[in-house]
């Protein structure tokens, strides 16, 4: 296997990228990122709402799956994959300290699962609403 030739700019870029993907962030830090993105998307951004997030999480969006199909209606409890049955660790940060500690990971799963549930990507507003709902779920 060829070893990459490291140069200073490449190393710096990798460090910065790594800082962004390191699983050392917090749900609050992620919420701030989503707020900043939401302000870019729509100037009339008025904050996140846990109630809106809960409606989005539990509601049906015209497709086969909802968020609760895998994460169950109690996101503080263990879930299971709707098709394979594979166990899914609890989603609420209060029940699982690893949740929402990496922006890259959270965005990856939002991208995949919103495409499955909504048929499109979630907006930053929607992501922030769902996060606001999940952080106040008690196991």
């Amino acid at each position, binding site marked *: 296997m060829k070893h990459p030739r490291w140069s200073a700019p490449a190393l710096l870029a990798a460090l910065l990228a790594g800082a962004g993907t390191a699983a050392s962030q917090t749900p609050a830090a992620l919420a701030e990122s989503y707020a900043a993105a939401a302000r870019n998307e729509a100037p009339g951004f008025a904050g996140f709402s846990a109630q809106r997030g809960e409606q989005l999480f539990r509601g049906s969006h015209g497709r086969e799956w909802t968020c609760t199909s895998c994460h169950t209606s109690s996101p503080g409890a263990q879930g299971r*994959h709707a*098709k*394979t*049955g*594979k166990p899914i660790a609890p989603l609420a940060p209060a029940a699982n300290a690893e949740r929402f500690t990496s922006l*890259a990971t959270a965005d*990856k799963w939002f*991208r*995949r*699962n919103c*495409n*499955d549930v909504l048929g499109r990507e979630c907006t930053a507003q929607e992501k922030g609403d769902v996060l606001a709902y999940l952080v106040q779920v008690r196991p």
Partner: protein
Amino acid sequence: MMDRNGRIGRVRTWYRVASRAERATPLQSNGNEAIDAKNKASAVDTAARARSECAMNRIRTFPLAAAAAGLAALSIAAAAMASDRQVRSTSPEPAAWRAECGSCHVAYPPRLLPASSWRRIMQGLDRHFGVDATLDAGSAAAIATFLAENAARVGGKRAQDETLRITETRWFRHEHAEVSPQEFARASVRGPANCDACHRDAGRGQFDERSVRIPR
């Protein structure tokens, strides 16, 4: 191995070794020289004929033995080809492979599909059997390389026709021919794609038949 009649027991032979009794009995004198000479000559003749028959039998059985050896060699080769799906991964698995490909289902070992099938799967991750399984570019590249390097070696047209579903490959159906549809449909099994329902070590790439337990 040799019984009373001089026949060798387990090992089948097509010639008969003279029994101990026969060998022990000397030629009886008949009292008549001419007849004695004739008997002796015919005894020698018989012995010589037996020896040559023995040799003839060996020559006759040689093609059979050669054919048997050839068949054995062929079947070993066939088993080796069939078991190329049993060969372990030659390159170390990237962390992304197990983390991403094992997040929703068991991480199916690359050797279960040919490289062409893996390529098609990786190119269609946005509609991966009905769901979105897209990856970032770096992970996708690392995983694609790992899959291609450790894929099943199936040649020619068969590789192109190969289904994307491991459970629909000829190899899988042959291996699981003795499992009934009812067993696959059990709630505890949830279908043939759910390897680790019965293969408890599927997550470690081990599908040894002796450790299979089909749950009730």
